[in-house]
């Protein structure tokens, strides 16, 4: 008898797996049919591999550490220096490649810190509610009512410039988006019958919030986090560009682009423009669950969000302000 039950359970498990695999294949097929999605994926993979193997493929790894070669400063692109050299003679190609790794880390850290602050607050605001929840949401509203870049600059002006402070500042102004997102989701889920069932058998409020609600909020959080990576990187680059973020020997793209020299700069500049695009694609394209063009309007999420935005302070859908 026992063995029979086990066998049945195994079959059920196996069939579930098979269904999941079929789903995945179907999804891959739909994804593959859309040229923009595939191109986006390709760019993301390229960017990730550059970031991954960067330190081993660059010709002058020491040039990212603040070395000075005045004998070869401001050279035009050549076979020895593909992108030329900057004003202290460092190889621009090396610094651009290593910058990819740095940018990825910056984006990851900012998004992680912001989500770590915002997600628990959102769960509490959505599920526990009451005065505490109300208070959390009002604070969130205030943060969302000021352009993120401005607030980040304000925080950096008090902390002092530097890459760590810049990342901290951006994370400090980034979390409200997660509160807003998670609060809505948690509020919706708390009406589900399994939450009620958990409550009925006497599960504590905190346990319900973090064991039952939180895992079910994960997918929109991940979607938002992946989309935020690109904007977070760009905001950090913006701070670097105006001189408040990473400081010169650090191979950060925004800081590099602001160094006033031409023509080597042009190349750095081109290097900066594409990862933003691909990260944008990385965020936007793969999360499209249905093939584009089937729906009447092509941006259902955006349009819907806008329609729901009666209170126009709910700006999280669009990320922060980059001009």
């Amino acid at each position, binding site marked *: 008898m026992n063995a029979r039950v086990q066998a049945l359970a195994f079959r059920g498990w196996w069939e579930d797996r098979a269904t999941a695999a079929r789903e995945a294949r179907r999804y891959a097929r739909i994804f593959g049919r859309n040229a923009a999605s595939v191109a986006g994926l390709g760019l993301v993979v390229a960017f990730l591999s550059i970031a991954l193997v960067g330190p081993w493929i660059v010709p002058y790894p020491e040039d990212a550490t603040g070395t000075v070669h005045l004998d070869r400063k401001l050279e035009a692109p050549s076979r020895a220096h593909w992108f030329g050299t900057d004003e202290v003679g460092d190889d621009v190609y090396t610094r651009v490649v290593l910058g990819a790794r740095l940018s990825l880390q910056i984006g990851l850290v900012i998004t992680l810190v912001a989500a770590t602050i915002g997600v628990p607050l959102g769960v509490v605001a959505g599920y526990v509610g009451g005065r505490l929840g109300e208070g959390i949401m009002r*604070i969130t509203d*205030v*943060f969302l009512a000021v352009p993120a870049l401005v607030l980040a600059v304000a925080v950096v002006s008090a902390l*002092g410039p530097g890459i760590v402070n810049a990342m901290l500042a951006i994370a400090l102004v980034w979390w409200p988006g997660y509160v807003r997102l998670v609060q809505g989701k948690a509020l919706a889920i708390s009406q589900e019958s399994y939450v009620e069932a958990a409550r009925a058998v006497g599960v504590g409020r905190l346990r319900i919030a973090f064991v039952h609600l939180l895992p079910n909020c994960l997918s929109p959080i991940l979607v938002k986090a992946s989309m935020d990576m690109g904007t977070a990187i760009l905001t950090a680059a913006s701070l670097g*560009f*105006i001189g*408040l973020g990473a400081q010169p020997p650090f191979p950060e793209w925004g800081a590099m682009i602001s160094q006033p020299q031409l023509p080597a700069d042009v190349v750095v500049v081109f290097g900066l423009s594409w990862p*933003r695009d691909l990260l944008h694609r990385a965020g936007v394209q793969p999360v499209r669950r249905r093939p584009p063009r089937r729906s009447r309007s092509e941006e259902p999420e955006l349009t819907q969000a806008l329609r729901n935005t009666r209170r*126009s302070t709910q700006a999280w859908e669009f990320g922060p302000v980059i001009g």
Partner: protein
Amino acid sequence: MTGYVAGRVLALGVLLFGLLCITFAISHVIPGDPARLAAGPDASEAMVQTLRAQYGLDRSLGTQFVVYTRGLLRGDFGLSLRSRNTVADDLARFFPNSFELVTLSLLLAVAVGVPLGMLSAVYRDTWIDHGSRVMSVSGVAVPAFWLGLMLQLVIALHLGWLPLGGRLNLTTELPPPITHLLLVDAVLRGQWATLGDGLRHAVLPVVTLSFPALASILRVNRAEMLETLHQDYILNARAQGLGGLRVVAKLALRNAMIPTLTMIGLRYGWMLGGTLLVESVFDWPGIGLYAVNSALSSDFVPVMGVTLVIGFNFMLANLLVDLGYAWLDPRLRRTAA
């Protein structure tokens, strides 16, 4: 309707108070010792003490907050730690420049974005549509400062068509102020040479600042138009014999404009944030450049002033958008009142 407006204005007041708390926290709590920061690294202990007393930093946080709030209500944004100018005077000097930049950019973004979005929806999948979609994707993907640098490099440096940056040429005559908006004053005083020079300096920054806004206004308007054009009442109007463009412009556009209006309001605020980057690139003497330069010298008092001004403007824009909603869509007026 009155109740609706009053509620919105009240909400604005609450948000403003919240923003004030944030700027207070940033300027009085985060930096370990603002007085030492202001005095510089080589200052003696006595100097730091004097500064501390001068700025009221030796009092309790509660007292400081009351003083801070009372000052702001009187329009006193404090003294710059470096230049010792009153921040309010500096803001009054720089804000009109930013206001002109942002207004021109928003006008450009709306004037190009809305019609392009409309055309793109009406002529779907034609070259107009493809072209404008390429534009909207690149508008989201290209960082503002990169676009600005590229425009400087190609149009100002290589082609020499427009000046690299700044507000006016050094030799250009300044109009005596009436509204403090340079271009408007130039028109009012009839100084056409100044107007021309001012406009030439404005082209590149305006294009740079408006591009991302243009792209997103275009996207939203296109998506909304596509949806609206499929509605039954449009079909009905067509069946009754109304002509093509009339239906599109009078019936569909008005409904499609509601989400577009939200986007325009949001974008106005974001543009104010974008001035920090664009004004740095083009050396435009506005509050963005003022904030950046102050932040670079660890002078956070002006930065707080700029944050408050930008935040207030952003909230005001959102308020106007909410009211504009009620005007465009009578259904909202009834439910909200």
